[in-house]
């Protein structure tokens, strides 16, 4: 009896030790020669900086499960959530650049966090692999609200400055930027109420605790179709395929484009050869029929971008934010 327990404990301890050694072999990968040959020879960790079951996680799991079928090693999702994504982003940026740790970033959040606070990563710590999702922003109110159109909403805001409230998913988070930019361009005054994440932001709107919300279309499509929420305008160049009756802000005379992208990146010193392998893998997976069907079921708007295009997109996001943030007081 006793011997058995000692044995079990010994085995458990060995597992714990294995874990520790993996951890300690982590940073300072500069001088080490990264072996590209034989890649991949072990499972690849894919960091998701948001909790399991959330929008980012669902998208990441759909893509990796399709990509895995054409990869000789498993792609293991690690949810390292917290601090609006900063903890996971930092772990990703500081990981050994050997191709065995990659991850998803969310834009503009990844670019805007280091502008808002003293983060432990900088945008240049990562190099792009491919973009996966582009989720356009929308401005919405309750279906039962008195504002049928964007003009109604703006007229009410102008007549009663500083009374209409808009919920967002966190101070300085993507939806806050979208809402504040609209407020600036429309020349109105709104109250911005930060909530803890998208679910709570929408619950505040659905419960009538705020007047409006800025969200991404995938997060609210079901609620709009169920007749609970109404979209006043989309932050896109062209009208949304799914809701062709909804006007864009541009056609109403406000030059604002806003949305959230989710992209795969690797630590900055990851070798070109590995980036190429991963890029081809994910490009094929993104464009596959299976992936497209599953993404459609999950309300994920897909937009593939290669590394160069994604790099330009990230740079443009940074320029946009630098230009807009001082104007809107964020």
């Amino acid at each position, binding site marked *: 009896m*006793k011997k058995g*327990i000692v044995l079990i*404990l010994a085995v*458990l*301890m060995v*597992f*714990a030790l294995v*874990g*520790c050694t*993996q*951890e300690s072999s982590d940073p300072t990968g500069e001088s080490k020669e990264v072996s590209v040959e034989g890649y991949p020879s072990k499972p690849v960790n894919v960091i998701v900086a948001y*909790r*399991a*079951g959330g929008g980012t996680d669902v998208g990441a799991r759909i893509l990796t499960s399709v990509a895995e079928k054409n990869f000789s090693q498993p792609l293991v999702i*690690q*949810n*390292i*959530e*917290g*601090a*609006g994504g*900063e*903890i996971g982003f*930092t772990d990703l940026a500081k990981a050994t650049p050997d191709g065995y740790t990659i991850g998803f970033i969310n834009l503009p959040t990844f670019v805007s966090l280091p502008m*808002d*606070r003293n983060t*432990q990563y900088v945008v240049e710590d990562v190099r792009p692999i491919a973009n996966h999702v582009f989720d356009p922003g929308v401005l919405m109110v309750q279906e039962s609200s008195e504002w049928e159109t964007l003009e109604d909403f703006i007229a009410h805001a102008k007549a009663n400055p*500083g009374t209409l*409230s808009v919920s967002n998913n*966190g*101070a*300085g988070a993507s939806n806050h930027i979208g809402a504040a930019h609209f407020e600036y361009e429309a020349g109105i005054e709104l*109250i*911005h*109420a*930060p*909530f*803890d994440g998208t*679910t709570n932001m929408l*619950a*505040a709107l*659905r*419960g*009538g*605790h*705020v007047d409006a919300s800025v969200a991404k279309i995938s997060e609210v499509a*079901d609620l709009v179709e169920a007749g609970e929420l109404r979209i006043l305008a989309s932050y896109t160049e062209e009208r949304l395929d799914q809701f062709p009756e909804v006007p864009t802000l541009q056609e109403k005379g406000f030059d604002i484009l806003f949305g959230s992208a989710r992209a795969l990146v690797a630590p900055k010193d990851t070798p070109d050869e590995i980036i190429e392998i991963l890029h081809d893998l994910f490009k094929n997976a993104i464009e596959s029929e299976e992936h497209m069907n599953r993404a459609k079921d999950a309300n994920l708007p897909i937009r593939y971008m290669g590394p160069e295009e994604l790099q330009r997109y990230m740079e443009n996001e940074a320029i946009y934010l630098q230009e807009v943030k001082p104007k809107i007081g964020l």
Partner: protein
Amino acid sequence: MSDILYGLMNALNWINLIAALFSVSAGILVGALPGLSAAMGVALLIPVTFGMPADTALISLAGVYCGAVYGGSISAILLHTPGTSSAAATALDGYQLTLRGKAGKALGTATISSFIGGILSTIALYLLSPPLAKLALSFGPAEYFWLSIFGLTIIAGVSSKSILKGLISGVVGLAISTIGMDPITGVPRFTFGVRYLLDGVPFTAMLIGLFSMSQVLIMAESKMKDKAKAKDLEDKVMLSWGEIKRILPTCLRSTVIGTVTGILPGAGGTIAAYMGYNEAKRFSKHKEEFGQGSIEGVAGAEAANNAVTGGSLIPTLTLGIPGNSVTAILLGGLIIQGMRSGPELFTSHARVTYTFFAGFAVVNVFMLFVGLFAGKYFAKVASVKDSILIPIVFALSVIGSFSIYNRMFDVWVMFIFGIIGYFVKKLDLNPAAIVLALILGPIGESGLRRTLILSRGSYAPFFTSTVSWVLIIMSIVSLFSPILMEKLAEGRASKPKAETNK
């Protein structure tokens, strides 16, 4: 409706049935071992469930919770040492029955009434959660602020031993909850540049420390000695039809008491069990048997504390406000598996939710059979030496806290909170109050500040909605609950010593 059926079919999948059997057995084991609580069992199990498919993980969590609450009764009856504090009331009559050679009767009563309490509270979970989840939308920032105030007032109630120590515990919890980013502006507070503290102290690792590692230290400190050995049973673990009929009204009454007590935040299994026991005595035709070995007494206590399991999940799932330390820990595990509190529970997440509910029913059925056929063997394990128990719990605590994010930082957090938990117990502070304050603190803070942002600094919105007023009144009532609890405690004449360092 189809979601309810889907959940049921999902729970009856053979892998899930095996998971239910194992987790209930593990739960009973944890519950039966004096010193190991349900909170600890769930905290240690959560990291294990990470690798499982969502449905299996949810059912395993339910199994450990229900099993542990029931398991406490086995050692209460056979060893006069309640395995968990909520089984203290069971020991009153349960051990008397054992002394009179009717240990099998006592175990049978505990098992059957636990099953009735558990399964009926599951039905309450099915019926009461959907309307309450809809109500969740009417909870705005002001209402969440009052909800957290209401929860905090209950700390006075749960720590009826010493209100001062209860309040100190609450303040400790509130202080720890200020670590991490400011919930409104995102400014880091007390993180000292450590990024893993940005979101607050890692929750599960902290709880494993507070509940498991601290117990290791307490057990290691006291002199190792052999525990009382459980005697072999002289009768069968079963009740006659007549006896079942006799305890049935008591079971039903205690189920109502337990479910309602469970729904109220703060009040847990211990209080419900004493209330169930007292009411059983008050309504009994055989009052003279109480204290001398009454199966109605055992049934009154056991049906009540198992009914708490279903009841306590109702506010946890619908509002995200856990009623006790076990559901607080459970909530973390449920979120990881994709369950969300609030209105989505029965719309987009309905399948996950109903799988969990069905799993809850399934584990209660398994609990009945495992209890009836194997209950007496668990009592033998309950007398295992501390010298074997301590290293096992120690190893599980380290592995569990490491495996959450595969990082050593969490293991250090676990150790630090193990030491804090040790002093919490030594100073007779209340760990449940600490956990409650930890959860309620940030909810109250952001509720207060969001309300003020929306009202541009006016305090009027705190007093406009009906829900707010209901919560304010409930808070005031609960402030006076210690007086009520004192009255209740008068009925606890021959209270056996509860859990710890036996």
